[in-house]
C-alpha cells in the first residue's frame, strides 16, 4: 500500500514538479543499473541531489532505491525520521561517534544483500555549492563486501545553485546528471574511491559549462 502511494506520488507529483523546477536533464541514462544489487555514487551539493537521482529511475524501481543518508541529519526521531525512512526510503548511517566494534555500514550491506540499489554521496556532506571535496572510503567497503554490486558514477550539476547548504530560499535552475560506465571492486579502498572520483570529475566535461562565481 505504502509502496503504491510512493510510486504514484513520484510519478504524478514529485517528478512533474521536479521537472518544472529543475529540468532534470540526463546524459547517459541508459547506463543506470536496471536492477540491484548496485550502488549509485554522485557528488553532493544539495538536498535536491537526492530528488534528482530518484527521478532518474523508472518509478517501478522506487521500492529498491535506498539513499544512504546521515543519521544525525535525517534520523533525529519523530515524524522526520518516519518520513525519511518510509517515504524517501533512506538508510540512516552514523557519521562519527560510533564505537569501534560497531559496523556503521551494516544496514547498507544488508540492503545490498536484499538486491537493493543504494544511492550514496561519497563526499559525506554537501559542502560548498558546486564544489567537490575528498571522498570517504565507505562506498569502497560496501563494494568490497558485495563485489557483485557495480558502482555507477554520476556527476550532478546545478542543484547546489537551487538549494545550497544553509539556504532558506529555493531558486529554480536546470540540473544536469551525467551518468558514467559502472565500476567494479578493484581490491583497494583508497584506489577505488580515487578512481571513482576521477570518473566523476571526467563526467563534468559532458555537462553544459557552469558559469557561477
Amino acid at each position, binding site marked *: 500500500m505504502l509502496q503504491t502511494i510512493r510510486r504514484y506520488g513520484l510519478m504524478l507529483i514529485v517528478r512533474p514538479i521536479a521537472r518544472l523546477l529543475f529540468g532534470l536533464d540526463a546524459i547517459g541514462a541508459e547506463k543506470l543499473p536496471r536492477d540491484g544489487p548496485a550502488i549509485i555514487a554522485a557528488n553532493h551539493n544539495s538536498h535536491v541531489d537526492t530528488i534528482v537521482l530518484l527521478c532518474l529511475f523508472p518509478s517501478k524501481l522506487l521500492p529498491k532505491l535506498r539513499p544512504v543518508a546521515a543519521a544525525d541529519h535525517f534520523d533525529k526521531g519523530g515524524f522526520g525520521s518516519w518520513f525519511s525512512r518510509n517515504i524517501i526510503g533512506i538508510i540512516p548511517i552514523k557519521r562519527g561517534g560510533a564505537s569501534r566494534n560497531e559496523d556503521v555500514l551494516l544496514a547498507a550491506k544488508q540492503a545490498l544483500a536484499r538486491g537493493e540499489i543504494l544511492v550514496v554521496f561519497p563526499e559525506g556532506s554537501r559542502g560548498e555549492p558546486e564544489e567537490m571535496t575528498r571522498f570517504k572510503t565507505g562506498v569502497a567497503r560496501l563494494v568490497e563486501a558485495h563485489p557483485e554490486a557495480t558502482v555507477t558514477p554520476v556527476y550532478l550539476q546545478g542543484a547546489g545553485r537551487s538549494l545550497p547548504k544553509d539556504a532558506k530560499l529555493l531558486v529554480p535552475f536546470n540540473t544536469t546528471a551525467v551518468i558514467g560506465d559502472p565500476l567494479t571492486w578493484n581490491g583497494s579502498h583508497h584506489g577505488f574511491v580515487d578512481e571513482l572520483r576521477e570518473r566523476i570529475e571526467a563526467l563534468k566535461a559532458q555537462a*553544459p559549462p557552469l558559469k*557561477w562565481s
Partner: protein
Amino acid sequence: MSGLSITGDNFAINIAEPLVFGFLGVLALLLVGTIAALALPRMQPGKWSDLGPRMRSWWVMALLLIAALIAGWQATAIVFALISFLALKEFLTLAPTRKEDRLIVLLAYLSVFVNYGLIFAESLFVDSYEIYLVFLPVYGFLISAAVMAWIGRTEGYLPTVGIIHWGMVVCVYNIGYIAFLMRVPDAEAPAGGAGLVFFLLFITQLNDVAQYCWGKALGRTKITPNVSPNKTWEGAIGGWLTTALVFFWLAPYFTPLSPLHAAIMGVIVPMSGFFGDITMSAIKRDLGVKDTSRLIPGHGGVLDRLDSLTFAAPVYFHLLAFFAIERF
C-alpha cells in the same frame, strides 16, 4: 462568423472557419511528417535517427497549442506563461550569474507572473496594454538594477544586470506578446485573436522549415559562418521569399491587413524571425552550448524552439497594431 461550433449545457466552443482549416492543415503536415519519420529510417538506416523523437515532440507541441487556442485567451496566457518560465530558467541556468544573484533570479521568475498578470488585469486599468508595454522594459530594468545594487556585490555587477534584463525581455516580455494577441476582440480580425496567434506561430515555424529545406536543396554560400555555420544565403532567401508569399496569400483569412500592409509584414516578419534565430545562436556559442536544455526530445530546449519567435512576436504585434488593429 461561420466555422465550427460545439455547444453543450455549460459551454460553447466556436472555432472560426480559417482556424478550422489551419488546424486541419497542421494536422495534415504532422501526419506527412510522421509517415516520413516511419519510412525514411527504413530506407536509409542510421541517417534519420532523430526524426522519430522530433516528430513526436511536434505532435505534443502542436496539440498543446491548438488545445490552448480553442480553450481561449486565459488558457493561452497560462500556457505561454509556463513557456516563458521554462525559457527564462534555461537562459539563467546557462548565462553567467553570481552566488549573490539567487534572489534577483527569483525576482526575474516573479516577473513572469506580473507580465502575464497584466494580460489578465484588464478590469484594473483603463488600458493594461500601455502598462504591459512599459512594465518589463522600463520598470523591470529599474527594479533589477536597484535590487542588485542594494545586495551590494560590485564585482561583475554590470554584465550580470545586463544578463538579467536581457533574459526577462527576451523570454518573458517578447513571448508575452503572443498571449496578449489573444485579447484582440473577435470583431477586429477575420478569425479573432486566436487566428492572429495561430498565423504568427504558423508563419515563424514555416520560415524555419522553409529555410532548412531551401538550404538543404541549394545551400552553398554561408551567411553567418561564425555564428550559425549551417545557415546559407540560399536557404535564408529561399525561406524568406516562400514565407513572404504564404503570408501574403493567407493574410486575408487571418488578419485585417490591406494587401499593401500584408506585403510589408510578409517581408518584415520572417526577416525578424531570422534575426531572432541567429541572435540565439550567437548567445549559445558565447555560452558554449549547442542546445539550451534537453526538455524537448529531438529539438533541444524551449529557447531552441522559440528563438525566431522571440523577435518575430513583438514585431508582428506592433505592425498589426500600427496598420490595422484598433483595440486589444
